[in-house]
């Protein structure tokens, strides 16, 4: 939980802020490593030397076998996990903690069970300095955006998985974040709800111009949504390959281009 300052390891040739090929990068990950220290004292390298530049308004997906460090990398961008070495910057500013424009949607909905849907969303405004009534009004607006105004008074345990995940998206949007970090947000949902929410997410992304980093283990989900798909390999986690997805939206699963990419990613994943 503690947020010790990020350790920086800048090699002399890494250059000054803003130079290099990823000049236009909005999120910049340079040589990021993560080592977990275990209770027994041993050190486990989980991410090794990750370099990645993500442009503003880009939709990027991380895909890879479970345990390859997707969640860890996402949490590092969110500022919830320290970077052991290397650095991560958002709009040129090194990430030192949460609250630098990152909104997070977690794998399990992570709603506060003691708050109703609208209060959960209003929680996102608590640093805004808005009056209570105003927070509530805006929270209701956000619930309407995800189609849940009717369920405003329900507690999380009184909602289905899909509704819970919609509420967490609305809550993350309360910060009006420039970046939306989503960790397998639809992983636990049934196929129908999942497709619905994917479409809704694309709608929000286009309407509100967000940069989205999206973790999934579903190839077709990544293909439906992303501009680029980053494939991670395990032990220790590293970027194996990046697939640009140059298919026009709305995308169709029956598109031959879709299938070709699906096959290519499948091959890369299974070797």
């Amino acid at each position, binding site marked *: 939980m503690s947020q010790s300052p990020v350790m920086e390891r800048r090699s002399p040739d890494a250059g000054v802020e803003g130079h290099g090929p990823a000049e236009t990068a909005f999120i910049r990950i340079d040589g990021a490593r993560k080592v977990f220290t275990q209770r027994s004292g041993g050190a486990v390298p989980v991410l090794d030397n990750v370099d990645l530049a993500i442009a503003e308004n880009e939709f990027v997906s991380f895909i890879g076998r479970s345990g390859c460090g997707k969640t860890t990398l996402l*949490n590092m961008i969110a500022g919830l996990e320290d970077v052991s070495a290397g650095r991560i910057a958002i709009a040129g500013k090194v990430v030192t903690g949460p*609250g630098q424009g990152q909104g997070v949607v977690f794998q399990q909905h*992570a709603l*506060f*069970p*003691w708050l109703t849907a609208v209060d959960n969303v209003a929680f996102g405004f608590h640093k805004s300095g808005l009056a209570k009534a105003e927070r509530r009004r805006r929270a209701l607006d956000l619930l309407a955006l995800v189609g849940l105004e009717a369920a405003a008074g329900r507690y*999380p*345990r009184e909602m289905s998985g899909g509704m819970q995940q919609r509420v967490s998206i609305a809550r993350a949007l309360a910060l009006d974040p420039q970046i939306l970090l989503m960790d397998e947000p639809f992983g636990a949902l049934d196929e129908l709800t999942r497709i619905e929410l994917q479409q809704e997410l694309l709608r929000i992304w286009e309407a509100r111009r967000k940069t989205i980093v999206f973790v999934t283990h579903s190839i077709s989900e990544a293909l439906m949504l992303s501009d680029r798909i980053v494939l991670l390999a395990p032990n220790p986690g590293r970027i194996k390959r990046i697939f640009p997805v140059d298919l026009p939206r709305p995308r169709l699963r029956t598109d031959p281009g879709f299938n070709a990419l699906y096959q290519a990613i499948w091959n890369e994943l299974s070797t």
Partner: protein
Amino acid sequence: MKPLSRLSAASDLTLGLIGAILAVAAWEISARTGLVDPAIFPSPSLAIRAAAERLTAETVADNLFWSLLRVFSGFLLGALAGAAVGIAAGWYRGFGAIARPLIELLRPIPPLAWIPLAIIWFGLGEPSKFFIIFLGAFFPVVTAAYQGMRSIDPMLLKAAQTFGLSGVPLLLRVAVPAAAPDLATGVRIGWGLSFGVLVAAELIAADRGLGYMIINERNTGGSVGVIVVGILLIGALNLITDAAIGAAIKRWIGRWHGA
């Protein structure tokens, strides 16, 4: 669904009532027929008659008042202290590392075993009773609060951090509510223990209260009926207050926690 479950709840209640009536009837009959000696175990009707003769409403009310005052004050402060210490021990590692072993060392000592020491420290008056009732509430609540804090889903804390919450606001707005269900269980156990401790303390060293009322009846060679009524009264009081606390807890967290 709803009418059906209400129906079955009603029939549960009826069956329970029938069972209770049967039990009381069996007790009455066995005392009347001489199956048990009414001098040592009087029938309910006899006991009530004896109690009505020997006790005035005023005496009962006075003893009841003292018992309730003791148990509420001791419980309230014990539960508050237990919650504060348990929450702090779960949240602040350094404090937990020192406080926990001390608590674990003292926890296996039953609250009643503190009676002599309480008398040594505070004399025979009210403070010593307050102290052991306090302990009766403190240990279950402190244990439950600590366990509740340690089993918070870290995801909730992370989610709150993404909204810029940290430090004391994170503790009060997220960690404490998340630990509330465990805390509530501890409070309920603490109430039961406080109540048991109260009665014992009044039996062993007191000059008023319901516990004193019944032991005094026996020491002055009074009526067994009064003792029986006193025991039932104490039991009913425990049952009612426990149900009230259960209902309060349900109002507090029931809607979001289920249960």
